[in-house]
């Protein structure tokens, strides 16, 4: 499918099936209002446009479009997903070492850390069983991933240390390469913990929402106080000592800060160069939940952010806004795009008691309980259900203008509405606007 739009004075065309991206002139842009695969120059619209732009110009532009069409780089045929092998060994695990948190963030999809269940920490025995389970079910995959998640994973620091030590020993035995990442709220960190994280984690995701008043209105402690002043200092320490290793400051925006460009700028002004800011996934009945009436504002704000990103990258090429960072040069392969996040297929989440769910957003949804790492039980039927759900979701994505750069999210299709997809589509267009050379 061909999709065209204008952004920052550029006329951009995407071929969603081949993932091709073009910048075109006025003639091509207008021809594409009428052009259909296999059409010819005898069409009535051709004469109309020839009068407007001149016959030679329209003829040349037509030939260029036709050339791309013949090369399956424009109006490419839809991908037959039945030809893609979706089932995979497990390679990535979200290890929820703590279903507890010092914060009571209002928008937390994990119900303030406990995922709707008991507050508890994972034992080192369960963590080791999780590592064994991952290795056992990883087939020939060499690169395995453990993301320490919660709740607040650093509330279970000793188990994190033991888990990494155990995984490294077993990586040598089984010829695997573990990558460790963590998502932390920044509380309870000291120099020893910071040094450990910087040494062991290939990526550290630090939760901070931007401006102090925005952060402290949502990210509050159990006694109702904001956490900004503590965590900003800790995050600065991490980044200062981190060198060139990956990190992201990850924030959330809600209806209360639809001017979220100001939050990205606030984070940048604190010295952070790698920033992610995502729409909140929350109960639509809360007064800070995003809804359909916010879409136009969000779209406008992403464009505003994109303009700021374009100007900032001119003076600071190291700056990265995660969701605008579409990788056009070395993008993931077609199989990866089809399989998406791998939820319940090559990616799973494990709770403190060892229960396995398709992903962190499914934790606590017992109809999706896949098994338990402590007794090595694993339900292939839930895995099959996830793959079936993926195939059904891909059908919904078939005519989506963002499908070349987005991917199906089973949690979104299962538990949320079309809203997230609308936001993704506007974000992709703004992102592409930042990638077109001036």
């Amino acid at each position, binding site marked *: 499918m061909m999709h065209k739009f204008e952004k920052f004075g550029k006329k951009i*065309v995407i071929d969603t099936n081949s993932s*091709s*991206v*073009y*910048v075109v*002139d006025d003639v091509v842009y207008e021809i594409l209002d009428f052009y259909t695969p296999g059409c010819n120059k005898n069409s009535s619209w051709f004469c109309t446009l020839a009068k407007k732009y001149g016959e030679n110009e329209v003829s*040349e532009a037509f030939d260029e*479009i036709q050339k*791309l069409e013949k*090369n*399956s*780089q424009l109006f490419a045929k839809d991908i037959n997903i039945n030809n893609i*092998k979706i089932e*995979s060994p497990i*390679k990535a695990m979200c290890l929820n070492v703590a279903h507890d948190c010092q914060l009571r963030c209002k928008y937390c*999809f994990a119900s303030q850390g406990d995922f709707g269940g008991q507050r508890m920490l994972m034992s080192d025995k369960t963590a080791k069983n999780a590592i064994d389970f991952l290795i056992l079910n990883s087939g020939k*995959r*060499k*690169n395995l*991933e453990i*993301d320490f*998640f919660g709740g607040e994973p650093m509330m279970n620091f000793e188990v994190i240390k033991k888990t990494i030590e155990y995984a490294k020993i077993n990586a040598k035995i089984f010829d695997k390469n573990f*990558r460790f*990442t963590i998502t932390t709220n920044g509380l309870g960190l000291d120099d020893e913990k910071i040094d450990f994280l910087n040494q062991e984690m290939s*990526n550290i*995701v630090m939760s901070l929402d931007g401006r102090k008043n925005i952060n402290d209105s949502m990210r509050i402690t159990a006694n109702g106080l904001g956490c900004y002043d503590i965590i900003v200092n800790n995050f600065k320490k991490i980044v200062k000592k981190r060198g060139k290793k990956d990190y*992201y400051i*990850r924030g*959330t925006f809600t209806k209360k800060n639809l001017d979220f460009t100001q939050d990205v700028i606030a984070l940048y002004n604190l010295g952070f160069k*790698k920033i992610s800011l*995502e*729409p909140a996934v929350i109960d639509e009945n809360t007064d800070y939940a995003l809804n359909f009436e916010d879409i136009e504002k969000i779209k406008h704000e992403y464009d505003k952010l994109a303009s700021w990103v374009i100007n900032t990258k001119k003076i600071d090429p190291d700056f990265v806004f*995660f*969701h605008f960072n579409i*990788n*056009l040069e*070395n*993008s*993931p*392969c*077609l*199989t*990866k*795009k089809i399989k*998406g*996040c*791998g939820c319940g297929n*090559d*990616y799973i989440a494990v709770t403190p008691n060892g229960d396995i769910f398709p*992903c*962190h*957003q499914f934790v606590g949804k017992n109809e999706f309980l896949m098994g338990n790492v402590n007794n090595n039980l694993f339900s292939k039927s839930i895995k099959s259900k996830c793959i079936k759900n993926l195939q059904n979701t891909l059908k919904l994505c078939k005519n989506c203008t963002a499908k070349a*750069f*987005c*991917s199906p*999210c089973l949690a979104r299709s299962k538990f949320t509405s079309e809203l997230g997809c609308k936001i993704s589509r506007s974000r*992709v267009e703004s*992102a592409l606007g930042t*990638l*077109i050379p001036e």
Partner: protein
Amino acid sequence: MSMSINMKHISTISSPNSNKNACDTGCGECQASCQSACKTSCTVGNQKCENQNIQICE
């Protein structure tokens, strides 16, 4: 067939037939998207292919 050349009316910014990703392997060695900086707003567009051994398509 590779065709990333720019024409008079159309500039190619990215075209998969002109890079290695057309030789699709699905080796699965790349990062899971929700293990990056996003846990709620899934995307694969900013992921990178980590397979250095894929031949460039002709």
